[in-house]
């Protein structure tokens, strides 16, 4: 089926050359442009794809698109949340279809160009070779991509859409329909007295917790890694194993154990302090001391990971650098500052940034240790609530799913913009040849 007939090249001033006609035909229906280009097999194949796509998905997309626009019209019969989900899936399927559709138009245009130049368009064999050759990596990535869409993109889209609805207890299917409300949730959030009264203090503590816990856990990890890395230290493997243990125990188990260790009246920590003559510390009931306890626990939970990371990097630093520094008469501190620290930070910066982002939303430790408590008189937030745990309290007992989604978007925007800014500033992604 190779197109053997070579047409004469069209005049350059003619607006409707072969590429344009082919592209327009492809717009009308997938494959028409290809047929016009005399690529019969490809054209028929594209036509088949298009009709089977429409045949299989038409009803689903029809209901899905209608559903996402109206969110249902008859209560009890239409389940708004299911319609929303179907609508999002429809959008994803349409996006996928459009990708192929545009590829088809582009292909028609390009082949048209080839024909206009008077060359022969690629035949079926060549096309097959091109597709399998260039397309092979994409073929391998495809399952991963679909999985990513199903488990990451879809829930994210769902959450984003929810933030613009009135989905709460009183507007909940099957009894009631959910409606689109635009940006109302975001405005109402900031207008509500409940949110105004503690937002600033919660935000401050969130930032302090994030900065202090991440920085110290990294510093501690780095310090221990360097210590163990010293030539004079013996039983290196033993020390590493012991120090990695906090990481090996599931965090929520450790946190619950710490909760009982820090108990005001019956906890072993206060018992020890009392027997030393220091008196008990109100770990669970005084906001200041609860914050200290949470930070201490987070250091303990977090340092092994940083230590493992830094150990890996340290082992990769060439000893030549240190020998050269010694010849130049550098002190140990100078060696640390000018060789170890820059190289370690350079290699670990991306992980460090993700750790900051992780601690910003570190719900586990806050909630499991003391449920964000101790309570503060006249405030909806406890003494150690960070944004995410506070939002959880405010929205989940009152079934305000719409508010929860709205706040999550705000938090995500904050974390993402800071992370992106930091990522772009670190050299890790710019100079790729500092460590060879």
């Amino acid at each position, binding site marked *: 089926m190779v197109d053997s007939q070579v047409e004469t090249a069209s005049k350059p001033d003619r*607006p*409707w050359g072969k590429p*344009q006609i082919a*592209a*327009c035909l*492809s*717009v*009308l229906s997938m494959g028409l442009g290809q047929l016009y280009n005399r690529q019969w097999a490809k054209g028929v194949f594209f036509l088949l794809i298009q009709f089977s796509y429409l045949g299989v998905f038409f009803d689903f*997309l*029809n*209901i899905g*698109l*209608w559903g996402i626009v*109206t969110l249902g019209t*008859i209560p*009890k*019969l239409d*389940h708004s949340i*299911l319609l929303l989900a179907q609508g999002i899936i429809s959008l994803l399927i349409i996006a996928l279809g459009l990708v192929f*559709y545009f590829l088809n*138009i582009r292909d028609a245009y390009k082949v048209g160009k080839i024909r206009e130049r008077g060359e022969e368009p690629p035949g079926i064999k060549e096309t097959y070779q091109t597709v399998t050759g260039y397309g092979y990596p994409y073929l391998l990535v495809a399952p991963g991509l679909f999985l990513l869409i199903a488990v990451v993109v879809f829930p994210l889209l769902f959450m984003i859409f929810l933030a613009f609805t009135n989905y*709460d*207890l*009183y507007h*909940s*299917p*099957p*009894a*009631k329909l959910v409606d689109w409300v635009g940006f109302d949730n975001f405005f*109402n959030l900031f207008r*509500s*007295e*409940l949110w105004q009264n503690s937002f600033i203090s919660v935000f401050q503590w969130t930032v302090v917790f994030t900065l202090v816990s991440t920085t110290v856990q990294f510093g501690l990890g780095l310090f221990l890694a360097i210590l163990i890395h010293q030539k004079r230290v013996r039983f290196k493997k033993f020390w590493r194993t012991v120090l990695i243990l906090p990481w090996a125990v599931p965090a929520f188990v450790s946190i619950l154990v710490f909760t009982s260790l820090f*108990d*005001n*009246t*019956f906890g072993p920590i206060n018992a020890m302090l009392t027997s030393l003559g220091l008196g008990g510390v109100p770990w*669970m*009931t005084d906001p200041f001391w609860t914050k200290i306890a949470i930070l201490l626990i987070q250091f303990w939970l977090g340092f092994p990971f940083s230590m493992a990371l830094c150990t890996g990097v340290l082992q990769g630093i060439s000893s030549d650098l240190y020998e050269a520094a010694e010849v130049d008469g550098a002190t140990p501190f100078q060696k640390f500052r000018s060789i170890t620290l820059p190289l370690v930070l350079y290699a670990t910066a991306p992980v460090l940034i993700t750790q900051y982002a992780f601690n910003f939303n570190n719900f586990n430790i806050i909630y499991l240790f003391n449920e964000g*408590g*101790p*309570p503060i*008189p*006249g405030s*909806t937030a406890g003494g150690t609530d960070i944004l995410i745990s506070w939002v959880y*309290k*405010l929205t989940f*007992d*009152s*079934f*305000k799913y719409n508010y929860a989604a709205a706040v999550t978007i705000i938090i995500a925007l904050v974390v993402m913009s800071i992370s992106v800014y930091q990522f772009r500033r670190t050299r890790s992604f710019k100079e790729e040849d500092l460590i060879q």
Partner: protein
Amino acid sequence: MKWNKWLPMAMVLVLAVGVLAACGPQRDADQTQKEAGKEEKPKELVIWANKDSDELASTKKLAKRYQEKSGIKVKVVGQDMLKMQDKLNLDGPAGKGPDLVTWPHDRIGEAVITGLIQPIEVSQDVVDQYSESSIKALTYKGKLYGLPKVTESIALYYNKDLIKEPPKTWEELVEYAKENTEPSQKKYGLLFEGENFYYDYFLFRAYGGYIFKEENGKFNTQKVGLNNEGSKKAGIEIEELYKNKLIPKGIKADTVNGLFKEGKVAMVINGPWALSDYRGAKVNFGVAPLPKINGENAQAFIGVKGWYLSNFSKHKEAATELIQFMTSKESLKSRYQDTGDIPPHKDLIEDPVIKEDPAVKAFAEQAGYGNPMPNIPEMGQVWEPINNALAFIAQGKQKPEKALDDAVKLIEEKIKAQKQ
């Protein structure tokens, strides 16, 4: 010739709009209307039961009996009781839902609002079989949504080695605690989770406090009574317990249980869920109803679980019959023997099986005096502020009057936000 490039794009848009314009399902609004008329005898009814193994086995046994009796097949499916609502929300409209469901009664309000369950129609004789408080628990806005099978209440556990007979009144109990508490030796006269409103509610009730004002069998959520005269008096009473160091600050139920099992505590206030734990620890203990307070029987919170009629059931009458069978005297007796759950059935409480077990008798008696936790969703906004207020009172951070006023203000704001 740039427009040449844009022309295909414009055509795509036209096509897209054309597709969108013709969408939506074809249907008549009438099709939602249920056809009225006599319903036929169903072939099968489905029950979603709690997946706890004893309970599930007992429910299956009863289902089999009903099948033999009526000829209707009853299928029992074990489900996580607290996730049943979420599951019914999706399975119900899809036509895969059950006829009967169960969960703690304080979640009935949510279920009615989201349209998951429907009122049942039974004769007054049937309703009268059960304790009034348990029927009230299953009633939402004046309509009955099911029949009760279990009731739970807190009561007074006492260590027989330390105290032979529990005091008859609350005032005597506090006196006893004052004389027999020595925190330095971890010795206590009376312990309970005093910073938890669930356990303190009977004190509020005793002096005239209430959560929401009841008007014509409905709760008025605009009127919160947790800072009225009576509530403040209860606040002072609780403050005294902590001020006199009768109860250590911040104590939780786990610690209370631990100390009671070590034999350090003469009396604790706890629910029937602690029974097997205490029995396992070989404590020589007895259970009594809470002592009289302010001259009257203590009204503690009770929790009720019943069988409710799913809103998606296609066999309303048959399912209602099944509910009546599942909560009949014989069924509840069989259930009690299998699971130890205390039934709110008036005749059954007088039955020898229950009367002869002193612990169960005490819980059943106390449950009879109790008030069900409000089953409206606004109750969810009460717990945290009031518990925080109790913590402030216990720790001496705020005076009871101020703490309760603050809590009520917060509760009102939260309810407002919930309905926003």
